[in-house]
């Protein structure tokens, strides 16, 4: 918030430090205690232990001994954890030791105020950190489900859940068998192949038509612009199930159901709103005098487009294309309706797998997809920054 303001930090009274630590220890002890059968005992022992540690660290050893104390606590945690529950206990214990070592000094030395403005009342400080903890919890909610499937995909068993071997970090509990299945089972490989055959073609259609239309839409005098925009964006707004129902009825009349081109056309139209939105957003900052200058120097419209306009809006076009690609690559409802046995895509395979026979190969597929989406996210982010830099909207 305000790094310029230096809030003086001072050692807190031992009563405060011990009190806070006792509360934190009690909270941790509650969980360990219930796991052992008695929550109350856990609270008492945890609170007493932490309060005692706080007194020892603050009063007897002081700030000078901070490093040894913190290492000592980690060692203590590791040892206690190992005795209690082997490897997982060791890791948990180490983490506990590290956290409480840091926490004692953070509270005891009043370091928590360093980044805050000096005039905040204790209540405001408390709220500040409570808010951070709440936000942290929401971030955990956002990210945990995605992270959880990654270790599970290395499960040696055909289970969707952590086995005791996995929790013991026993190498026998882990294997690459689901990845092997994913890469060798013809059901999965043909699904991947279909997805890779459909998505790029659909993307190509939506990007080429979408970019042209976005350029047309960004001109100043377009009759019925609002209505046209509403129609072009509608595939994103209309629920997929309705689009799929309508397409199923209509495409069956013209013989496109169960064909490759039926799915490609459907996916292309579903990707168009994303292309339109990203490319028009890029064109908002486009300096029109550049094309005029090019035309002035004798370039024909096609040359102007490819030599002047296209390079500048390319980042927007590519990220629109990535959106369109992921839309097609991730789409399942339309494929369920329009597809056939030979046209099963990866999402279809995952969907039917989830609905009928649960095989952890889905988790291997999911992990690979997460890796792909991280790659896509990174490229879109880089492209966005590059586009802003090209258009001079932000420095660097």
């Amino acid at each position: 918030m305000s790094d310029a303001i230096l809030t003086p930090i001072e050692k807190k009274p031992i009563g405060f430090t011990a009190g806070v630590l006792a509360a934190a220890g009690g909270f941790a002890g509650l969980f360990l205690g219930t796991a052992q059968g008695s929550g109350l005992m856990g609270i008492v022992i945890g609170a007493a232990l932490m309060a005692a540690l706080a007194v020892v660290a603050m009063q007897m050893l002081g700030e000078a001994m901070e490093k040894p104390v913190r290492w000592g606590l980690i060692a203590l945690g590791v040892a206690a954890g190992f005795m209690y529950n082997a490897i997982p206990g060791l890791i948990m214990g180490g983490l506990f030791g590290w956290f409480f070592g840091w926490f004692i000094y953070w509270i005891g030395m009043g370091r928590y105020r360093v980044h805050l403005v000096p005039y905040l009342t204790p209540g405001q400080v408390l709220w500040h950190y409570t808010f951070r903890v709440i936000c942290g919890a929401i971030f955990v909610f956002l990210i945990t489900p995605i992270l959880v499937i990654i270790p599970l995909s290395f499960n040696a068993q055909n289970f969707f859940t952590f086995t005791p071997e996995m929790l013991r970090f026993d190498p026998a509990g882990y294997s690459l068998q689901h990845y092997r299945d994913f890469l060798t089972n013809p059901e999965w490989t043909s699904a991947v192949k279909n997805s890779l055959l459909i998505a790029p073609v659909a993307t190509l259609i939506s990007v080429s038509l979408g970019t042209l239309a976005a350029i047309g839409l960004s001109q100043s005098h377009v009759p019925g612009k609002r209505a046209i925009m509403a129609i072009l964006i509608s595939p994103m707004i209309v629920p997929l199930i309705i689009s799929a129902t309508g397409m199923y009825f209509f495409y069956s009349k013209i013989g496109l159901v169960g064909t490759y081109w039926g799915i490609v056309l459907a996916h292309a139209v579903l990707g168009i709103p994303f292309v339109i939105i990203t490319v028009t957003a890029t064109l908002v900052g486009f300096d029109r005098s550049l094309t005029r200058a090019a035309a002035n120097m004798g370039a024909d419209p096609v040359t102007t487009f490819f030599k002047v306009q296209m390079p500048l809006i390319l980042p927007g076009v590519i990220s629109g294309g990535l959106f369109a690609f992921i839309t097609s690559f991730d789409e399942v409802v339309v494929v369920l309706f329009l597809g056939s046995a030979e046209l099963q895509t990866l999402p279809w395979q995952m969907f039917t797998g989830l609905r009928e026979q649960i095989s952890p190969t889905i988790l291997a597929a999911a992990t690979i997809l997460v890796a792909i989406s991280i790659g896509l996210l990174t490229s879109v982010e880089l492209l966005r920054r590059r586009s802003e830099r090209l258009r001079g909207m932000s420095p660097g």
Partner: protein
Amino acid sequence: MTDAATEPDKITGPTPDIALRAGDKTKSGPVLAADGTPLKRSLNRALRAQKLRALALIAPLLLFVLITFIAPIGDMLFRSVENQIVSNTMPRTTAALQDWDSNSGDLPPEEVFEAAFYDLFLASENKVHTRLGSRLNYEQSGMSSMFRRAGRGVGDIGDVYLDQFKDLDRDWDEALPWAELMGDPDWIAAQDAWSEADGPMPSFELRAGIAEVLPRTADAYETFARFMQDSNGDSPLEEEPWSMVHTALYQDLAAGDVAGYDGPRADMLRAADALVADPAFETISFRDGFEEIDEDWLSVENWRVIKLYSPDYTVGYFASAVDMEKTPDGIEVRPEDEQLYIRLFQRTLFMSLVITFSCILLGYPIAYLLSNLPSSKANLLMILVLLPFWTSLLVRTSAWKVMLQQQGVINDVLVWLGMVADDGRLVMINNQFGTIVAMTHILLPFMILPMYSVMSTIPQSYVRAAKSLGATNWTTFWRVYFPQSVPGIGAGSILVFILSIGYYITPEIVGGTSGIFISNRIAFHISSSLNWGLAAALGTILLVVVLVLYWAYDRIVGIDNVKLGG
């Protein structure tokens, strides 16, 4: 330097000067462009060219979207009212039913049964009677089996006559005598000479005059012959007619006189006429024939349903979609225990609201934090929001399946912590809770991103000003910051609500039976129960709700302000 070329008065080509001078000469005239045309017209022309160019760029995509997307939606809307199956399958019956008063309480007259006999005979040859049966079964259960039986049973009615004519003369059950009796001699010759290599068969033609003598028979035989040629690719010269034709023959012979007939096979026909005139000739009324097929054919109620659904367009599907039914006395609410869709719509709306609300609750703090952090930290944390946004929907749904199931991660942790007994694991999946949690997670980025883009435009100085004027933290937030962030909440809420109301995949996988949405029912009708009209009607209602929200979104936020990925 007084070169002629540089002297303004001596240049012959158009220069800006010419226009100026022309303007000078006619002080009151219009302003002229360089080429001498009035400036206004010239500008208009340029503008028109610009408009046309823009439209030419948009046109291909617009056309593409109209054909691949808008037309299918239109088709669905059409299907929600379309009901041509009854009149297509039973054209004679629907025409005959026109004059029958369905409220009289009497059965339809014999003509209706006669028409139904011919219609169903043809329909069962075409194998479409069961489709009509299942269509009408949506309106009145039991009609499916009634039509199925009729498909098998109409032949029995015809056999009564076929057998008697056959006993009289074997030729009545032969292909060639019939063809000679009914067919045009030229056609018979052409058909006889026809071979596979000649392409399509010569289309059957009635012999001149036969339609006057035997109107019904001619009609029935023509239908039969055309059917053999077109559907089966068989020659009518080699196929014995259906017993429907014999039934028609009986009717003609009973009604008219063939004494004056002297065409081919006249003897055969006169003998048959004599047989029919004989009191010993066995007949069966169509009504009794249908009674033998199935008692249900004599139920006034069923005939009322057929008459009710005989028009080409119906509001019946929409009535079903809102738990009502079309009856001869108007539209009525279905009995309590058959109601389903209103409750499903209510549940969809309710759960979408809960999901929207939880997204606001979880999204607001995050958007606030991100917009108030220094941009380097905010960008880093933004990745945590964008990663779920970019991750495949199915990955996230399977992740929630892994998390929530009874042997899943959350239950495991709770059991390990001793908060839940091992035999009392929480049921968090295949119910509303599972759907709400998973969908909140999936739609949360759609709430955070618009909120964030609004919140990052709120100047910090307003908050500081409020505080320096003595407002407490809460007052500052509630009176100064929050009102300015409301547009973000509005944008995010409408987006999330629109997306959640039509969700299919996630409820299907984690929703069980109590957590499903209206979309799941639509998919069920498309793929399992095959009641496409009802699916289209449900889809139309859902579409209207979404379009109203879309319109509201456009008014409040503007569709061109939709942002993706921050």
